[in-house]
């Protein structure tokens, strides 16, 4: 199956530029084959391994597909396939004659490299796949490279990505030096290797976009074409999570790393959603939500690491299962939301939410599918986001009830996870309300049109995934459970918690009765006579669309609470005098970490290097002077030493 997948994706590389239909067909076949392979490994709970007889770069190829990598491979296959179908309409040859072919080629390359990355069990080949994956990501982000902001976003992505890769180079090299082989595998018994995990955490953390290392993420996701944002956010950043999960399972565990991962998770979750609330650009907002969801995943993973060190097999698997299921869930609903945002951008031509409004009338499909994604990402029952958060909560509550140091971390984590949920809800009520409901705020929003069948179809597929995991979670427990068992063998064998089946039953009932109830109330309302009139608005006679609450005003209360970190910039001209002529208010939330930390540090480095460059000016006399001064200093030191 994997061979079929690899061949099909490789074939799609050939047909990418000239034959879009051929490309799409072979990519879909490849994705489907990879999906089957991943599902088989997860369902059967066995691992597949293969070593080649030939050598690449001096090392034999070693491929391994176990529970952990299969879980991520399924996400790659589903989102990759859906995104390819979406791009057929969204980034077609007619609208983008130059970049469409390149986009298809790099899309196949990205998917191929991610698959390879997940399979590689050799440090050297892993690094190669990682680098190729990062570079295909760069070319996809900068498809529209006529625009300045796209180029700068791409550059920031490339710089951050390589800074992370630097950490990975060090990590794999040290690992190979210590173990004596590039081959990767469980080395839990060599306690001396534990500190290497810090390097891996930095290297993979940059890619995953966890909080202080997320600087590249918002601009890259916002400026990339929407199907690229979807795969970047849904799957590509998960490769960082994959690295963290993989090596936290293989390396010997230390207590400190688990605590730090959990702490980073909590910080990313809360601050990610706080930054999201401050955004006006719909795709930038979704990008910050990726930081939040990565945080939720890391909470699960971090607590599982703590549990494995302290020997609590009761709640560790629950937290890890929740975190890993959230990997799938986030891949599904975040890609769905980016596709929805993409079809809005496609229809209206702007990402600025304050210019939108009332789009549901023109785009009923996009609006309802986006709403479904919004309910899912806010972690509300009966959809999938709730299932994974519920599993994490169960793990944390059990941690509270066990004696041990974990209580100290579990209590704040539970409270902050609940607050994150409420903040995400606030944020998505804002997005849905401002973009799809109410009256159009600008002329462009009035002329919107619904997206076509390809875009709609791929959104429906992802939405169906969200609904399926929400309504029958027991089926998907098997998959996460295989991954948990692959992470740490001792944790295998747990059947699905009984309450998971009950939860699925309640979700089914709730979903069915919600549909029935809504239809019934609608009919009832119409039967008594239904009159259409203007919004009452407390009797205001001449409401205009500009009087509606905007994205900024909706989130105002919460952004005020987080002003200490968001540091919003305000430009205001207050109305003055009896007949004020002119007044405006503008607020903008910058990327605080980038502008307040990274840029000053960068400027400092440039300043120091600039000073150092003055020594290098090409005049021979000065170099002779340096030599003499240097020799004199050495001589003085030698004399002082001997004397």
């Amino acid at each position: 199956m994997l061979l079929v997948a690899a061949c099909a994706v490789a074939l799609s590389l050939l047909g990418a530029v000239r034959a879009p239909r051929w490309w799409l067909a072979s990519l879909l076949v490849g994705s489907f084959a990879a999906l089957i392979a991943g599902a088989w490994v997860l369902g059967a709970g066995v691992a597949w391994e293969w070593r080649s007889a030939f050598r690449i770069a001096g090392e034999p190829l070693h491929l391994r597909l176990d529970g952990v990598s299969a879980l991520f491979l399924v996400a790659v296959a589903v989102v990759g396939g859906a995104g390819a179908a979406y791009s057929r309409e969204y980034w077609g040859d007619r609208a983008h004659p130059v970049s469409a072919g390149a986009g298809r080629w790099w899309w196949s390359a990205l998917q191929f490299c991610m698959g390879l990355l997940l399979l590689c069990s050799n440090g050297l080949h892993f690094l190669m796949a990682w680098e190729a994956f990062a570079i295909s990501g760069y070319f996809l982000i900068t498809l529209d490279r006529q625009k300045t902001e796209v180029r700068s976003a791409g550059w920031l992505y490339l710089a951050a990505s390589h800074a992370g890769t630097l950490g990975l180079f060090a990590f794999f090299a040290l690992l190979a030096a210590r173990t004596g082989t590039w081959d990767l595998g469980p080395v839990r018994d060599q306690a001396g290797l534990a500190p290497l995990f810090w390097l891996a955490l930095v290297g993979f953390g940059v890619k995953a976009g966890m909080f202080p290392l997320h600087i590249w993420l918002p601009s890259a996701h916002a400026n990339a074409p929407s199907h690229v944002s979807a795969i970047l956010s849904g799957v590509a950043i998960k490769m960082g999570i994959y690295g963290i999960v993989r090596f936290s399972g293989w390396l010997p565990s230390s207590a400190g790393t688990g605590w730090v991962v959990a702490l980073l998770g909590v910080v990313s979750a809360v601050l990610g959603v706080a930054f999201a609330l401050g955004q006006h650009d719909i795709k930038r907002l979704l990008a910050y939500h990726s930081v939040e969801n990565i945080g939720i995943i890391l909470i699960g993973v971090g607590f599982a690491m703590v549990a494995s060190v302290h020997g609590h097999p009761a709640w560790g698997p629950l937290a890890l299962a929740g975190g890993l299921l959230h990997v799938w869930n986030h891949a599904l609903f975040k890609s769905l939301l980016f596709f929805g945002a993409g079809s809005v951008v496609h229809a209206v031509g702007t990402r600025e939410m304050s210019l939108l409004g009332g789009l549901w009338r023109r785009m009923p499909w996009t609006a309802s599918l986006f709403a479904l994604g919004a309910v899912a990402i806010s972690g509300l029952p009966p959809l999938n986001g709730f299932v994974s958060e519920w599993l994490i909560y169960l793990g944390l509550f059990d941690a509270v009830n066990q004696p041990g140091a974990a209580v100290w971390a579990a209590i704040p984590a539970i409270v902050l996870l609940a607050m994150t949920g409420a903040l995400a809800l606030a944020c998505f009520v804002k997005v849905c309300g401002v973009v799809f409901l109410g009256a159009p705020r600008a002329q462009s929003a009035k002329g919107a049109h619904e997206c076509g069948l390809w875009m709609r179809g791929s959104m429906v597929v992802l939405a169906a995934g969200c609904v399926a995991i929400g309504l029958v979670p027991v089926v998907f427990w098997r998959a996460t459970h295989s991954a948990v068992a692959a992470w740490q063998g001792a944790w295998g064998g747990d059947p699905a918690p009984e309450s998971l089946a009950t939860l699925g039953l309640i979700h089914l009932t709730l979903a069915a009765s919600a549909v029935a109830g809504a239809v019934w109330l609608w009919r009832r309302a119409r039967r008594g006579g239904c009159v259409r009139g203007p919004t009452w608005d407390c009797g205001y006679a001449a409401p205009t669309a500009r009087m509606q609450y905007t994205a900024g005003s909706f989130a105002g209360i919460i952004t005020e609470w987080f002003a200490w970190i968001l540091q919003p910039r305000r430009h205001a001209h207050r109305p003055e005098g009896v007949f004020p002529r002119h007044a405006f208010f503008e607020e903008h939330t910058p990327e605080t970490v980038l502008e307040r930390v990274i840029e000053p540090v960068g400027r400092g480095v440039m300043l120091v290097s600039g000073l150092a460059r003055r020594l290098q000016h090409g005049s021979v006399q000065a170099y002779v002077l340096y030599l003499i001064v240097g020799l004199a200093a050495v001589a003085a030191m030698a004399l002082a030493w001997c004397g």
Partner: protein
Amino acid sequence: MIAVLDFASRLLVWLLVAPLLPGIINRVKAWVAGRQGPPVLQLYYDLARLWRKGVVLSTLASPGFVAGPAVAWLAVVAAALLMPLGSLGGTLSFRGDVILLVYLLALARFCTAWAALETGSAFEGMGAAREVSYAVLAEASVITAVLVLGVQSGTVSLAAMLGPSAGTGSVLLAVGLFMVLLAENCRVPFDDPNTHLELTMIHEVMVLDHSGPPLAAVLHGAAIKLMLFSVLLVQAVLPLGDMRAATAWAVLVAGVLAVTVAVGLVESLLARYAFRRVPLLLTTGFLLCLFSLLVAWKGGSA
């Protein structure tokens, strides 16, 4: 068969008793103010009348404007059915049902706020923004209260959590939960359920454009939510699980009545707080729950 009967009788209790509570509150307020006041059953009459009426829809509203109240009502009823009633226990008690309950209430909030934004009215946008913002603090308090009960009982299931008393910290927990009850049910001093023409409103302003059967669903859902929080408060604080069945029922009913009267008294004697101070008040509620958690956690081990 018994399970079906049990389910049906619970549903009837929640649906039929809930509208009584706002009536009692109004009665208490009238009594304190020396007025005659509306009949206790006023909300029943209102609901019956609204249910028969037609609706006026905003030209901007999508079908979600009617679906919102329907789903919100269902979510609140589902949450209520998860809540154990005295010695009866829960309908479907399972590990982690308490988290489902908290998130069902969040689902109701999402739907109400969604329906509010349908109309494009500045007032309703304002109300929705305030509701979802203050809910962040209320949610923190609720989950802390749940933690208190979890630490007390060592479980994550409502029926087991609500059986024993909350121990030494129960006074703190009671006050904290009471504050959450006032905030979540839009009561003075957080909100004023009587006015909806001022700029100072949270919840009432969100439902300005609803009429007819959807408004009935909104009002009935609000009444059930008030009863849900009162039942939660009483069961969290009093050790109903240790009593005999009949006593437990009597205590539960008396407790809910006492909470309702207390809400009425607070409403009569306090003025609504300025909006700037609402977050402070909510934070106070959260801190009370947090202190109660510390007492439950450290008090248990000492």
